[in-house]
């Protein structure tokens, strides 16, 4: 590790400074806390010449390639895939649980749910007719196309029609990762505050649809609905917006209708 002068660990600065007076010989310890043996750059026998090569390689290319494979695979199976994204606690699991209640008796559904740890979401989503797989990502803050391919393999879906993916609760990273989904739905909870889309625009801009959730308690939270809708219209003018409450079921007619129309 190359440390710049101003990057030396704090403890280094706190050591009493020895000063060499004329005639003194002292030792000054200038080691960093983390000395590393780094091979010298280049090969001196080659005359120290280096060269620059322009490569221009997109670094998410591998994920995008796998996402396209997933998309093709899902299309062959006539499966529509819904990627639910939001920050933690916006109501993805509650929305999905009610959606399955209303839909799964007539439509063949499957669920992949991503979290860093625990299978508590998957257990909350348990439904007699629906295979559910919890994907524990460990430290990854998003699901990627490769994880979806693995997860889908683990679901036993006979003539499945809808696959729901509950992404890791995170308002930043999932925006960059195509999973091969048919539609991306971003949840925006009334409890989030109306300026959330302005603070985290990429995730909303990457979504086909935005669901305003927890509408039953919007008033109690002092949620400025008009301002929220205006913010969404600025950030993602092309996204369809629906308002729902997963607790009371308000707005579910439209949401379920939207899902049925995908089939």
């Amino acid at each position, binding site marked *: *590790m*190359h440390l710049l002068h101003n990057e030396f660990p704090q403890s280094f600065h706190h050591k009493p400074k020895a000063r060499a007076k004329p005639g003194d010989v002292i030792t000054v310890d200038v080691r960093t806390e983390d000395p590393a043996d*780094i*091979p010298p*750059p*280049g*090969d001196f026998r*080659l005359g120290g*010449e*280096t*060269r*620059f*090569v*322009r*490569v*221009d*390689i*997109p*670094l*998410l290319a*591998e994920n995008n390639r796998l996402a396209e494979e997933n998309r093709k695979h899902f299309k062959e199976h006539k499966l529509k895939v819904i990627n639910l994204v939001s920050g933690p606690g916006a109501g993805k699991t509650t929305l999905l649980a009610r959606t399955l209640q209303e839909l799964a008796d007539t439509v063949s559904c499957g669920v992949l749910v991503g979290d860093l740890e625990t299978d508590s979401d998957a257990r909350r989503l348990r439904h007699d007719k629906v295979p559910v797989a919890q994907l524990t990502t460990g*430290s*990854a*803050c*998003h699901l*990627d196309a490769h994880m979806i391919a693995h997860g889908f393999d683990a679901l036993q879906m006979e003539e499945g029609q809808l696959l729901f993916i509950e992404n890791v609760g995170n308002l*930043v*990273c999932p*925006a*960059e*990762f195509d999973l091969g989904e048919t539609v991306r739905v971003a949840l925006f909870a009334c409890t989030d505050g109306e300026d959330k*889309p*302005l*603070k985290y*625009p*990429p995730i909303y*801009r990457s979504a086909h649809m935005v669901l305003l959730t927890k509408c039953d308690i919007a008033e109690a939270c002092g949620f400025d609905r008009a301002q929220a809708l205006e913010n969404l*219209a*600025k*950030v*993602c*003018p*092309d*996204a369809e917006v629906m308002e729902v409450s997963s607790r009371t079921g308000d707005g579910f007619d439209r949401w379920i209708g939207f899902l049925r129309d995908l089939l």
Partner: protein
Amino acid sequence: MHETGIAEAGIRAALTEMERHGASRILSVTLRIGALAAVDPEAMRFAFEVACGGTPAEGAGLEIENVPAEAWCRYCGIAFTPESVSFFKCPQCGEYSGELRRGREIELARLEMDS
């Protein structure tokens, strides 16, 4: 926090290029990062340093080339630099646009290698 994955993908690609060019060390790497790519430069530097460890890119310098955002207005048919990172308001007609032409790049742009 996906900077780690991106840094690892970057180093893998860089090492492949290095071998292809018959070099033995990577001395510096230039990444091209869009202004709206959701990549934090500080986290990227840290992740890059970790990813380089124990490879022929260990100790390599990292340069980040920023790409400014460029949005597109479908009504006026013009590209423009948005004033805000949150929303893209066309300077000509005032309509909001969700279309970005540039600014989401995450690319390995250039490599400096020995020989």
